[in-house]
């Protein structure tokens, strides 16, 4: 006979304000097997937890029910509590009487009745709980970091610093990500490149870090501590082991294309490094635009004149590093932990017809402006009009382009735009005192250390004129642009003649974030931002153990946040890797070999290949569970007609007794 | 001289019984004839053959609560089941009645099963002689007869214009009080049950044939369904389980059968009768060997229900003759 203790939480007035807690306690006392019931103001508080521990001692409780908030909130907290009092942590059950009761029902009596039922269910279930013991599994003490932006770099460096091996996978030819494209950073205005490049170099040089640039993660198998990852290394056509990055090839290469890094404002060659400080500082050949490739692909039938064979890079390369034989290859590596830092991309503003739908060369995105401002950029830092290279005087900034706008399916705030626009206004003024900036905004969101001051500075010192309102229309008038909008503070339409319009384009999840998420079996929002295990309490963990998320892949974040999250993820990863073995979640399926008839329906339905075949002493082939692979979904349980399989923590007996308390009481 | 009752008189008599007691009689439901309570006399199927299920349900219900237990304040209160309702079963056949009667052996032997005792006490059986025994019947071979009155309270025998009434027991007498019976000299034509089964000395034969592979072969085709046991008037095995509802516990007894797998499973999981052969053999050994040894009569009354309803034609009459032969062989061997 088990001795169950029930602890009902007031949660301040959150529960107590609606549910008659004392009444629930009284009802609990009458329930079979309940030997103790009590209430707490805040059961999750140290006081509350102490009262549970004491009651366990005093009343020799062997099972505990906590009626409080959702188990998704505090199940682990209370598991630790009962464990501290010497109970097996799995002899606990939570009755959700807050989210599922007091917060959604206003009628006190009904809510109380329901709360009692939920407690009764929990009691019935906990009575059938068994002590569960995690199994220990070995692990590979290596980490994979996906994404070589500032977040990934930070994570990689921090993990490497603890002596663990790290593989950093970057899709582009160079690490650096978005931050490398920036000129200065707010609110301190230090030079983005100056603070980032050293880190990039560290990554390249760190003995514990293997940098796989121009590579992508394709498949992920296994489980926490024991991942097996297929990484696609795209053919660079350049043998980086020989290449010294001297640069002769890309200086001579005749194949010119617009540069992705400079967002179409500049050009690069077909054999290229994305930007001067690229890491690795060795080129790759972009086969789409390589003349030799066009030569090879050319066939008579299409007519036209035969293109030149080119191969200049090959001829002039002092180290003979050009390797036309290179193929994409897949390498498979083992890891214990994975950090996902795939970052963001900026919103494509061409959907905004009223802003010219991308037709006007002088309507540019903020990121393009960064490139224009950057000393290393296409214009060596001189801010000129893309259309005619004229120096700009009147610049209009439009905020919330692809942010806070349901029409384009981007209702969220991208968070950084207000600040970088302030930065732009300040910088432009510094570049040229005669520049006049206008900023159309909805709100200026400057929450953060020195942010508000910075935003003010743009107005007070740099004289940027902030107009509260949206821009209704932008059109080309001669060489200039006319910007029509409204100043909603004075309720007047305004019309500004500008020679450059900068759209503060918002942040979006980077391409294929969703497919990667699926490969990693982690969830993502409808905007393809990755979802944390808990937005507040587990910000860098995910629902898949051993997979951590960081940076703006999770949602709009600025640099310091990304770096912080990078480090945070690193710590979590390290915490995992520094264990000698792992404890597997014991909430897995188990097979009763006596009942198993060996039809292996379970094996067919198991999404995780966790079902294995085993021959019993009486020569029957029956199924057994690989508990490291089993994720506890319970599909096999339902597929099993004889009921040979059960799911620990959600056994049929438990669910059934829960149901019976409802229908038979 | 015999006492008789016309069809109409019988019906009005039953009508009166209906008023203060539960009257159970053969009724046709869909394509089955079953012993069921009747609300009016015209529901009764007077001239049906033997019913598809035996009347044992009325002494040994398929499901019956032995007692209920309930939390009363601190302690637990137990209420044993009591049968108040007086019941009259009309139209029960001599073979079935005999089936009930011989079950007094196991059920009333000390300590008596109170529920069985109560059912017996509260129930009066109005028997009906078999005018035309069915092909599967073999009561005579089992020591019964189509007009055997030994196990009923009243036996009616159909005659051309009514029934010969034979009040066998006091209970019967009481039930007949106030019923006008005509004196008459008609005598019921004595029907014969011509299927003969060599039951003579079967007990010995079964004993000898106990270890014969015969049972295993026979079990080959047995499906181990419980039909034979559930239609049988003398199968009295049961299972007991508790059922909780609203904090109240009912201890239930329901039909079970030695044919179901795990029937003899004991604590620790061992089952002395795992193989089909031994389970099937158990059924016949119980009827033809253990029962007579313990209580005298054979445990079969020859109603032939199992013969008809076995889906794979396991025919007790065949088995009896087979076993006789086997027994004989083994006998020779041993002597």
């Amino acid at each position, binding site marked *: 006979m088990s001795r169950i203790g029930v602890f009902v939480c007031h949660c301040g007035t959150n529960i107590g304000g609606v549910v008659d807690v004392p009444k629930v306690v009284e009802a609990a006392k009458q329930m079979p097997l309940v030997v103790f019931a009590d209430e707490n103001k805040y059961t999750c508080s140290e006081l509350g937890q102490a009262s549970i521990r004491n009651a366990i001692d005093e009343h020799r409780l062997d099972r505990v029910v906590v009626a409080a908030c959702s188990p998704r909130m505090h199940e682990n907290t209370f598991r630790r509590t009962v464990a501290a009092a010497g109970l097996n942590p799995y002899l606990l059950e939570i009755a959700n009487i807050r989210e599922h009761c007091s917060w959604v029902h206003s009628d006190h009596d009904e809510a109380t009745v329901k709360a009692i039922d939920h407690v009764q269910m929990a009691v019935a279930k906990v009575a059938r709980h068994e002590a569960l013991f995690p199994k220990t599994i070995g692990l590979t003490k290596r980490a994979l970091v996906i994404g070589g932006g500032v977040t990934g770099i930070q994570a990689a460096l921090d993990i490497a610093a603890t002596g663990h091996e790290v593989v950093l996978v970057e899709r582009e030819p160079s690490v650096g990500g978005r931050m490398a494209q920036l000129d200065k950073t707010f609110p301190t205005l230090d030079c983005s490149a100056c603070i980032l490049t050293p880190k990039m170099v560290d990554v390249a040089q760190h003995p514990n870090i293997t940098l796989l640039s121009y590579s992508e993660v394709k498949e992920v198998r296994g489980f926490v501590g024991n991942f097996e990852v297929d990484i696609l290394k795209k053919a660079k056509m350049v043998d980086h082991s020989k290449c010294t990055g001297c640069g002769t090839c890309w200086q001579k290469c005749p194949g010119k294309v617009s540069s992705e890094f400079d967002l179409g404002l500049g050009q690069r060659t077909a054999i290229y490094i994305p930007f001067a400080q690229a890491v690795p500082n060795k080129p790759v050949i972009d086969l789409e635009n390589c003349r030799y490739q066009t030569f090879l692909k050319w066939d008579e039938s299409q007519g036209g004149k035969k293109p030149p064979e080119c191969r200049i890079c090959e001829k002039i390369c002092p180290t003979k590093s050009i390797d036309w034989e290179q193929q994409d290859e897949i390498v498979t590596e083992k890891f214990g932990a994975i950090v996902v830092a795939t970052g963001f991309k900026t919103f494509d503003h061409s959907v905004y*017809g*009223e802003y*010219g*739908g991308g*037709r006007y060369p002088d309507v540019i995105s903020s990121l393009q402006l960064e490139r224009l401002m950057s000393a290393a950029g296409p214009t060596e830092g001189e801010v000129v009009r893309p259309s005619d290279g004229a120096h700009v005087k009147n610049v209009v900034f439009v905020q919330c382009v692809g942010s806070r706008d349901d029409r384009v399916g981007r209702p969220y705030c991208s968070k950084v735009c207000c600040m970088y626009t302030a930065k732009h206004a300040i910088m432009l003024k510094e570049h040229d005192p005669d520049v006049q900036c206008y900023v159309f905004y909805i709100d200026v969101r400057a929450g953060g250390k020195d942010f508000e001051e910075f935003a003010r500075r743009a107005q007070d010192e740099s004289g940027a004129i902030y107009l509260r309102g949206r821009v209704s*229309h*932008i*059109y*080309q*008038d*001669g060489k200039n642009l*006319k910007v*029509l909008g409204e100043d909603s503070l004075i309720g007047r339409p305004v019309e500004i003649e500008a020679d450059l319009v900068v759209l503060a384009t918002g942040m979006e999840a980077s391409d294929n974030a969703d497919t990667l998420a699926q490969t990693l079996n982690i969830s993502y929002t409808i905007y393809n931002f990755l979802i944390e295990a808990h937005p507040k309490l587990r910000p860098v963990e995910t629902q898949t153990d051993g997979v951590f998320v960081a940076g703006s892949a999770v949602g709009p974040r600025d640099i310091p946040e990304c770096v912080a999250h990078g480090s945070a993820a690193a710590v979590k990863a390290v915490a995992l890797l520094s264990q000698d073995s792992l404890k597997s979640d014991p909430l897995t399926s188990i097979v009763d070999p006596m009942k198993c008839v060996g039809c292996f329906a379970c094996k067919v339905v198991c999404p995780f290949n966790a079902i294995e075949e085993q021959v019993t002493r009486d020569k029957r082939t029956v199924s057994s569970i690989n508990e490291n692979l089993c994720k506890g979904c319970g599909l096999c349980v339902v597929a099993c007609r004889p009921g040979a399989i059960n799911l620990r923590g959600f056994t049929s007996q438990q669910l059934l007794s829960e149901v019976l308390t409802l229908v038979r009481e | 001289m015999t006492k008789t009752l016309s069809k109409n008189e019988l019906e009005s008599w039953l009508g009166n019984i209906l008023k203060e007691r539960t009257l159970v009689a053969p009724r046709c439901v869909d394509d089955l004839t079953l012993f069921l309570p009747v609300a009016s006399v015209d529901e009764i199927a007077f001239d049906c053959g033997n019913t598809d299920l035996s009347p044992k349900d009325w002494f040994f219900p398929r499901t019956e609560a032995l007692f209920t237990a309930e939390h009363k304040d601190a302690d637990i209160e137990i209420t044993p089941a009591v049968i108040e309702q007086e019941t009259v079963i009309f139209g029960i056949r001599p073979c079935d009645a005999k089936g009930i009667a011989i079950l007094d052996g196991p059920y009333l032997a000390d300590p008596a099963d109170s529920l069985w005792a109560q059912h017996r006490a509260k129930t009066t059986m109005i028997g009906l002689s078999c005018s035309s025994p069915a092909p599967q019947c073999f009561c005579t071979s089992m020591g019964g007869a189509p007009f055997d009155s030994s196990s009923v309270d009243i036996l009616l025998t159909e005659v051309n214009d009514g029934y010969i009434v034979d009040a066998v027991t006091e209970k019967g007498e009481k039930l007949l009080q106030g019923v006008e019976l005509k004196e008459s000299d008609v005598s019921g034509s004595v029907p014969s049950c011509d299927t003969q089964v060599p039951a003579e000395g079967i007990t010995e034969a079964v004993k000898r044939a106990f270890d014969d592979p015969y049972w295993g072969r026979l079990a080959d085709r047995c499906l181990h369904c419980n039909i034979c046991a559930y239609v049988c008037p003398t199968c009295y095995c049961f299972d007991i389980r508790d059922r909780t509802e609203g904090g109240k516990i009912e201890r239930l007894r329901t039909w079970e059968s030695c044919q179901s797998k795990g029937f003899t499973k004991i604590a620790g999981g061992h089952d002395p009768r795992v193989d089909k052969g031994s389970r099937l053999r158990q059924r016949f050994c119980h009827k033809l060997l253990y029962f007579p040894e313990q209580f005298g009569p054979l445990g079969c009354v020859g109603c032939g229900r199992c013969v008809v309803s076995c889906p794979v034609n396991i025919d007790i009459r065949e088995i009896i003759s087979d076993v006789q032969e086997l027994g004989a062989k083994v006998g020779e061997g041993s002597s």
Partner: protein
Amino acid sequence: MVQAESSSLEPVAKRVYSYYPGCSLHASAKEFDVSAKLVCQKLGIELRELEDWICCGASAAHSTSHLLSLALPAHTLKQAGEKGLPLAVPCAMCFSRLRITLHELKKKETLDLVSRTLEKELSTDVTVESMLDVLANESISLPVTKPLERLKVACYYGCLLARPPEVIGCDDAENPQTMDRLMGRLGAEVADWGLKTSCCGAGVSFPRLDIVLKLSHRILSLARSTGADCIAVACPMCHANLDMYQKDMTAKHKEKTNLPVLYFTQLMGLALGFSPKELHLDRHLTDPLPMLREKGLA
């Protein structure tokens, strides 16, 4: 669907439409009506004017009573529905009202309400097309006799042929192309400019002329700055505002605009060989003829 039938009858696909001129085409915008009819005739498009059409309510009704603003067009739609022909509507304002009404009647409760008001069994089984869409249909070949060479046209659609996009179904509410392509097919050079759908101020013509002048002037001057010889319009209101007030603008802004404003149907007419007279090109306040002569089109 009716078109399908008729075309199945006659090998030469002949298009038949019910025609709703609307008030202004019988008055201020007569030239639109006339030119539209001529062009249609030429292109083998038969217009059958509805016998009992009434005012669409234009800007007045919906600022007074929502129900009224639906009931008026509904009356017309009812007839069109009975004819079983698609309804061609030249006036952008009327077109907008009819389309919006049609859109709103798709809501069951609205349909019932309006039906009760009109004591008519209304249905939404009728298509309403703007004359622009009717004529811009690229499957119609244009027998151009006098290509509009050397003529640079700034196509101006105004608000009502573009917005609200989900009701009007305009190709691109900010930078529509229908008329541009049409003019292109007539041999004209089209100006790429940014105010194709900006408001001319029609809504406030009477109370706030100053606004009209400001907005219309912006449109005219930008059009001019693109080197356009004229503006093509598809809306009587726009036409009125752009054409009528050019003198006042000149006075106000000390800048001579003098940019002819023509209905796109008139330009089509010219290209298809009709004379300026037939097309009533002499009815405009900003006289287009000098320019047209200079271009050898008149």
